[in-house]
């Protein structure tokens, strides 16, 4: 039994080989590069939010998914909007928003509480809902989105359509009652759902050993009569491959899948959290497994990327972020009286 937070998390890290292999995932060259693009776009957008926050331009909380980009991007890449898929993302999943079709402009308008964000300033930070893009934003109560995700999936099934719903939960959130009720319901009614547990070792300051007593959260799948997978959440290809199989299974009417993607939360729960309860050695250990750097190295090794094309990609990403921030900063804030609007639908 691990005695300390660090031991526990290092034990997690030791379970994986942390090698990105070149198994055939059915991906073309452009897919390999898109995966990198979305991860870099995510990392760059979040780094920019940190800057804006420190400049006092972002009010309220800032919640980032640094170090978890492979999970959010690899998973959402397995979805297909045109097949009716829907995304119910959580806190660390900006990568999923972008991969599934959200734009940096919208992200910055949301964080800068602009009137033209899809939430119109009514909700903040990563609670970003954009129903037109079939992205249903989270509420703060963790695991509460699971039953609605199941309901949306059920609606797809009732219509005899082929869409799949992807939802996420954390190692902390997975302990809340709705995780159980929702996943059980999905299993019984064979809802086309893929539920990804993003196990990043901590829930705010609480380490996993104080959060649950089982070895692997993915083992809970047995209890629900569904398939469960325990994977390296920092390997974007492994995440993609596992999620794609789960999505195909759901599309074929075989019901939900539970996937536990293991990674490390590299920054605090939020930017006002100094993260001091995480031992430095632990962060250093996981930093060597950075999902973006490892994947980049893999692509360079395979010749899918060159140092030049990497530079081009990086400046393209920075340019996009610059433009998006400028757009958001030039957008108006909501009119005060609109606070009273929209409580009820017509």
């Amino acid at each position, binding site marked *: 039994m691990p005695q300390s937070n660090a031991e526990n998390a290092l034990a997690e890290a030791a379970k994986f080989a942390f090698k990105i292999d070149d198994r055939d995932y059915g991906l073309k060259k452009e897919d390999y590069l898109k995966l990198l693009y979305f991860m870099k776009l995510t990392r760059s957008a979040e780094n920019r939010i940190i800057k804006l926050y420190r400049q006092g331009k972002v009010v309220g909380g800032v919640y980032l998914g640094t170090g978890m980009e492979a999970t959010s991007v690899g998973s959402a890449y397995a979805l297909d909007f045109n097949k009716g898929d829907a995304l119910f993302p959580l806190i660390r999943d900006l990568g999923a928003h972008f991969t599934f079709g959200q734009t940096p402009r919208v992200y910055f308008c949301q964080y800068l509480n602009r009137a033209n964000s*899809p939430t*119109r300033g009514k909700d903040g930070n990563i609670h970003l809902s954009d*129903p037109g893009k079939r992205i*249903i934003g989270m509420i703060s109560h963790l695991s509460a989105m699971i*039953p609605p995700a199941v309901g949306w999936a059920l609606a797809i099934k*009732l219509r005899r359509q082929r869409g799949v719903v992807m939802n996420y939960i954390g190692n902390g959130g997975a302990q809340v009652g709705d995780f159980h009720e929702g996943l059980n319901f999905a299993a019984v009614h064979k809802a086309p759902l893929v539920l990804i547990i993003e196990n990043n070792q901590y829930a705010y300051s609480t380490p996993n050993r104080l959060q649950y007593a089982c070895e692997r959260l993915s083992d809970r799948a047995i209890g629900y009569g569904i398939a469960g997978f325990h994977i390296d959440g920092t390997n974007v290809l492994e995440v993609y491959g596992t999620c794609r199989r789960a999505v195909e299974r759901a599309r074929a009417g075989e019901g939900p899948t539970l996937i536990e993607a293991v990674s490390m939360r590299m920054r605090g729960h939020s930017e006002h959290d100094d993260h001091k309860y995480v031992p430095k050695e632990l962060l250093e250990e996981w930093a060597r497994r950075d999902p973006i750097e490892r994947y980049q190295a893999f692509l360079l090794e395979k010749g899918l990327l060159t140092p030049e094309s990497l530079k081009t990609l990086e400046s393209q990403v920075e340019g996009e972020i610059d433009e998006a921030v400028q757009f958001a900063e030039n957008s108006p804030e909501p009119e005060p009286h609109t606070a009273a609007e929209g409580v009820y639908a017509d």
Partner: protein
Amino acid sequence: MAVITYIQAITDALREEMHRDKSVFLLGEDIGQYGGAFRVTQGFLQEFGAERVMDTPLSESAIIGVAAGAAMAGFRPVAEMQFMDFITVGFNQIVNICAKMHYRAGLKVPLVIRGPSGGNVHGGPFHSQNPEAWFVRVPGLKVVAPSTPYDAKGLLKAGIRDNNPVLYFEHKYLYRRIKEEVPEEDFIVPIGRGEIKRSGKDVTVITYAAMVHVALEAAEELSREGVEVEVVDLRSLLPYDKELILDSVRRCSRVLLLHEDTLTGGLAGEWAGYIGENAFEDLDAPIKRLASLDTPVPYAPPLEEYFLPNKEKVLKALRELLAY
């Protein structure tokens, strides 16, 4: 026109709406195979099939949350709580998802949560509660509580057709005790509109659900003494008919606010505040409230009788108002 019971009116409304609109489906515990704990959905599984009459696991939070997700995706689910006491298990789904999705994301949640509430049936603390006040204070929800078969049918239809989450509180005491003629043609009772169930002039009783009938009995008795009591049935609790309340108070000048829910934090406080702000000059006596005791609902009949409002207590309160 047929004479039907309150519970039959609910069954009829569900059946008619399910025929009228294919996006309406039912989910809840024991509603399909068993026909519902109170038989509301008897025969529905055979008539509509298992996809539209869904027997769910025992999971009130998931039942409500799944209904919310299906509603967001374009269906019009009607989720049953076997007893409205169990709605608390899904409290978070209601107040933080159903109630706030439209405000913060522009997504409508056209669902109905319905079930039997109320006491006087020897149900004890967990099968007799009146949970409505917990929800009336949540912007984004609508809350209704019919007292008659006509209103039960019309309000359920209105709730199902409403694009917002509607909590539909049936009163189980009224299920088979109240009968009346109800039209077979399609009709709705608009949400937000109350109704004067008995016209009067000397004092008015503002109330809803089972207490409407208690108030009417008390009014009958006082009428024999030459006092005419007005009985206003709110029918909707959120939004509630403020105009009707003010109109009644202005004409009658003395008001008793009556509900079966417990006193402190019960809806009478809200109505009293509104009346105090808007009709102070029209009052000839202080506002009076009558409600159940501030305790959990007790089980033993002598205890529950002591707990609940009844005709004698209403008469006493009315006489005090009239004597002021």
